[in-house]
């Protein structure tokens, strides 16, 4: 089926007034919204909707409460242990596919039935004429598993005695990717990194594959593909399974391909990038306040609306032209740009004073409102800049020097260790300490020695609590914390010390510790010290980290696009997981100029900025799809909170 060029009505989403290369990502939102409606209609009639907290932001990007109400949703609750107070006879639960959600539902149901019994007893005892608003017995519960039903959920449901019987039924709902911006698609799976790379549970990959399939059913199958990594492998297998099923059923109908390249990579292809402090404007906002599903929650004092002194939520995307012009800039240059823009607007406003009445009329009708909005935006972003500068710690320059020195090799390990010990002794936040420790271990050619590991970690648990013994183990599992096991090679623990990532890696353990260093050489991730990197008018991808480091995933894509698949084959051998590729033989110039990069496990804003620069440099449109935007703090907290 061929899709005509599609234009989102500006009133509907307000984004993307131009169609770039035929791929309009906002169609995905439309599509996701429609399948949500289909899902709601699975349970016709009035119902209460109970939503898993981690799905709320995602659903909010997909649709509005009004849409839910149009489809007979009475009340919306957050899934908690405490039962919802809804009065509907029908309930729809929208949950992640984990057994715990089913447990909650079973508890809610039991609670409801007990209450019902008690109420009936009271009703019988009391005088009949008292009209009480008594509860309605629940007639049907639909449990919607996002993105797919898993075996463990089915088992749990059966064990709770709710399987079959008609009261509770399972339904799966895969909403697909949701656009946050013209070049950013998300699935908002905040637990994916932990589930996949710590626990080894890749069950969400089936849903990612399905979402990818949905994307390709709109924009056509990619003509060239490269996938590498454990999660990527599970995704591509699931994707190909779906495609082969479709091919069997519809031979003739194929969408014209609009996607030239598709890259699927895992977060653990580059674990160093999230450990480094982000220095772009958007990255800095994420480091300080946290951006979740494209929205940042600013503290009270930054509220642009002075009348309502409360925390405010700001949607950050390129709809705001001021933000679009500074989001990917190096933080140091942002305030300057904003001030310049403010002056420009001021002069335009002053010009208006000399206008003739006719010109004035036009100005007021068209430009004034826009200028006013831009002025508001400038003042908001200037105050954010100011607040971030204020909140930056005194030793920020030491921190940056240490981080970048570790990556380039300019800082000695002993110096970094002293700084780490100092951070622990001052009891800085857990995530900051962990990021530094992990960075130290990854950048050393042999990882930390067992002795260093023991001394540094005991200082960390003293500062952050002994329970983080578990966090440290999980970090080793992911491969974020490298401990050299040469001393204990023969001991039984050595296999655990190496962690899951290395167990899955293609190399033997011996060479594995040097893997990151070798990778930096193969991919030229560290620019020469002599090379001058312009931070404010960037041409080099490493500008996002002050010219100290190029994010490996971006560099991998960049090299592959310019020099072909062969040029990165050595580098891929150093990254855990297996490679799948096709379509690399033909002429590259005939391909559509759209590149989709899917990063399983989250992508940082620093990488997004580098991808944007890569797009400008190569003249291609790069759309990044991901399980969610991430940062070092988010990764560390997801690992620590699970522990």
């Amino acid at each position: 089926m061929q899709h005509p060029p599609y234009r989102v009505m500006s009133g509907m989403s307000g984004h993307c007034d131009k169609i770039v290369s035929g791929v309009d990502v906002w169609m995905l939102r439309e599509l996701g919204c429609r399948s949500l409606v289909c899902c709601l209609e699975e349970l016709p009639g009035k119902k209460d909707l109970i939503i898993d907290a981690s799905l709320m932001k995602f659903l909010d990007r997909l649709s509005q409460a009004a849409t839910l109400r149009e489809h007979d949703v009475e009340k919306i609750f957050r899934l908690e242990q405490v039962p919802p107070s809804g009065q509907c006879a029908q309930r729809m639960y929208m949950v992640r596919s984990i057994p715990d959600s089913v447990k909650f539902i079973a508890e809610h149901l039991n609670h409801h039935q007990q209450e019902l019994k008690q109420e009936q007893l009271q009703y019988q005892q009391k005088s009949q004429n008292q009209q009480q608003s008594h509860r309605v017995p629940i007639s049907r519960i639909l449990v919607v598993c996002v993105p797919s039903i898993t075996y463990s959920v089915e088992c749990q449901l059966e064990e709770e005695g709710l399987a079959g019987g008609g009261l509770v039924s399972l339904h799966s709902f895969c909403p697909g990717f949701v656009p946050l911006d013209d070049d950013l698609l998300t699935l908002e799976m905040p637990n994916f990194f932990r589930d996949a790379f710590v626990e080894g549970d890749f069950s969400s990959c089936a849903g990612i594959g399905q979402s990818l399939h949905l994307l390709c059913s709109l924009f056509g199958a990619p003509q060239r593909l490269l996938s590498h990594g454990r999660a990527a492998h599970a995704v591509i297998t699931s994707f190909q399974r779906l495609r082969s099923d479709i091919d069997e059923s519809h031979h003739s109908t194929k969408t014209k391909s609009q996607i030239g390249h598709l890259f699927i990579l895992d977060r653990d292809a580059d674990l160093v990038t999230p450990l480094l402090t982000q220095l772009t404007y958007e990255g800095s906002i994420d480091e300080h306040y946290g951006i979740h599903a494209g929205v940042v929650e600013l503290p009270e004092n930054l509220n642009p609306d002075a009348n309502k002194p409360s925390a405010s939520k700001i949607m950050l995307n390129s709809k705001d032209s001021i933000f679009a012009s500074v989001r990917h800039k190096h933080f140091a240059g942002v305030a300057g740009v904003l001030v310049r823009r403010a002056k420009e607007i001021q002069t335009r406003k002053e010009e208006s004073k000399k206008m003739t009445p006719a010109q004035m009329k036009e100005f007021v009708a068209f430009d004034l409102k826009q200028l006013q909005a831009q002025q508001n935006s400038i003042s908001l972003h200037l105050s954010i800049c100011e607040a971030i500068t204020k909140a930056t710690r005194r030793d920020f320059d030491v921190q940056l020097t240490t981080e970048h020195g570790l990556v380039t090799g300019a800082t000695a390990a002993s110096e970094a260790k002293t700084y780490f010990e100092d951070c622990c002794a001052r009891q800085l936040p857990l995530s900051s300490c962990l990021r530094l420790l992990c960075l130290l271990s990854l950048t050393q050619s042999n990882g930390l020695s067992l002795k260093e590991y023991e001394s540094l970690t005991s200082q960390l648990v003293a500062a952050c609590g002994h329970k983080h013994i578990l966090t440290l183990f999980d970090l080793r599992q992911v491969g974020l914390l490298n401990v050299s096991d040469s001393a204990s090679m023969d001991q039984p623990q050595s296999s655990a010390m190496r962690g899951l990532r290395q167990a899955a890696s293609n190399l033997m353990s011996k060479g594995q510790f040097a893997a990151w260093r070798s990778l930096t050489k193969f991919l030229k991730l560290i620019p020469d010290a002599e090379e001058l990197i312009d931070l404010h008018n960037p041409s080099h991808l490493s500008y996002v980290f002050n010219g100290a480091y190029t994010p490996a995933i971006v560099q991998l894509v960049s090299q592959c696009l310019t020099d072909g698949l062969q040029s990165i084959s050595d580098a891929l051998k150093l990254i855990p997981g297996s490679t799948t590729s096709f379509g690399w033989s033909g002429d590259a110039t005939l391909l559509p100029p759209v590149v989709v990069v899917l990063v399983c496990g989250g992508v940082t804003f620093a990488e997004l900025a580098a991808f944007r620069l890569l797009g400008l440099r190569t003249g291609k449109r790069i759309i990044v799809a991901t399980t969610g935007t991430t940062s070092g703090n988010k990764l560390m907290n997801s690992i620590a909170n699970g522990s």
Partner: protein
Amino acid sequence: MSTVSWRGASESGDYLVDWSKRVKPTKTVPAVQGTVVSPDISSTSYVSPDVSCNLSDSILDNITTDNLSSSSISEGTVAQPRGVGRSLGSLGEKLQDWKPPSVKKWSHAGVVERCSGCSALEQQVAQLSNQLQASFSRSHVAVPVAAAVHAMCTGQPYALHCYRSLSDKRELLAAALRASHTSTIIAVLVFCRNTLSRQLFLQELQSSAVAAQSYLGYLKQRRQYREAMELLQDLGRHEEAALLRYRQCLAITDHAKKTAALRTLTSSSLSSPALTHYKTLINDQIDLLERQKSIDEEDSKSSSNALFKEYPRASSVYDKPLLTTLYYCAMYHWTNSGSHCAPAAFRSAYRLTERQFLWAVVRGRARVKHYFLPEQLPTLLTTRTGGMLGSLSGALSAVSSSLAGAPRPSLPLDRLLDALHAASAPHAVLAAYLSLVEPRELRLRLAQHYDVRSAVVEALVALKDKAGLQRYMEQLPPGSAEYVKADAALKTGRWK
């Protein structure tokens, strides 16, 4: 007896009541009743309104009482091949059990003359039973492994019980692993666990790291921790097994139970020499918990300590990190030397480094507006009695150590200044630290940043920046101490 359409649910229901009325009074056949109607059958298939059960009832009745054309049954089976398949399977079993007594019963009950073609009927019964058995076994023929795994991955119905041989199971697992579909891998593994000996099951897990990890993840998700721990032990992953146990100890809220559980953990699971690091840390944790408990009990009772009124406790210190506890004790128990809550006791008990100890103490004391001067810091480390500040021996040792060229307290001055400034230390204290900052340019910058006037003046003098000092003097109120100092320096100092 009237002919009853076996399709009509309500009619058959009426009929059932009728039937039970007839059977119950006939006390002549109690034994038959007892053996035929087993409890679950009587409850489910006769009373339950479930459609499939009704269907089975009705068919049975028709078989035994009335001449039923075989075409109607085949019609029924053909019409709903998928849904009825399963119920027919169980029906086949029921038929096997029921046929002889029920036929006997009905023939005894005096319907013989109506059932004239008895042998024909028996033939029909046999025929039908064969048909049912065939359909039963059809659904139990193993489909190719790849097809089964594909069905599992795509959420279609599947059945695994027909894969009975070990090689079948291995193939199934291999196919699931190839599909890299976690949910399918888990389903196959759970099937293997239920149908294989533990030893064989372990072999499967040992041969594939992905399988083992998926299964362990499943056990954890389902909160089957005991099995997960046993499995980890069997797989030789003792470190993980011990940590899983530790995780469960942490979930205990009762203090006595928690420490007891942790003690058992250190003595049993962590006895291996490879795990001594964990053992030390967890022993520290137990000790810390005991200490915190007693501190918390004392402090929640005591009203004598005036500090609690001036600086109310934010929360209980129980289960807080070690350095937080030290900070707390530096705040409230600075003078309790010798007791278990004295800061000095922490240093020896938990082998704290100088840096850890000094930072916690300096920050804790600054919180209650007690600021140390730079020369006092070394005394904190040397005094064994815990905070007898300015004691002669401490001061002397500090002097002697500084004379001997011993390194200064290992805290970085810029961060120390920041911490003290944040704790609103007086300018005199900040000036004392600022005077130690090198190079002088940095000293000037920091002094300006914290607005410590005397330090700015001193830094400018040290830098021999006459013009700068004169400019700075203009900002100072004439007559203030800094003004006088700057003025004196301008008059007496040697300038470039």
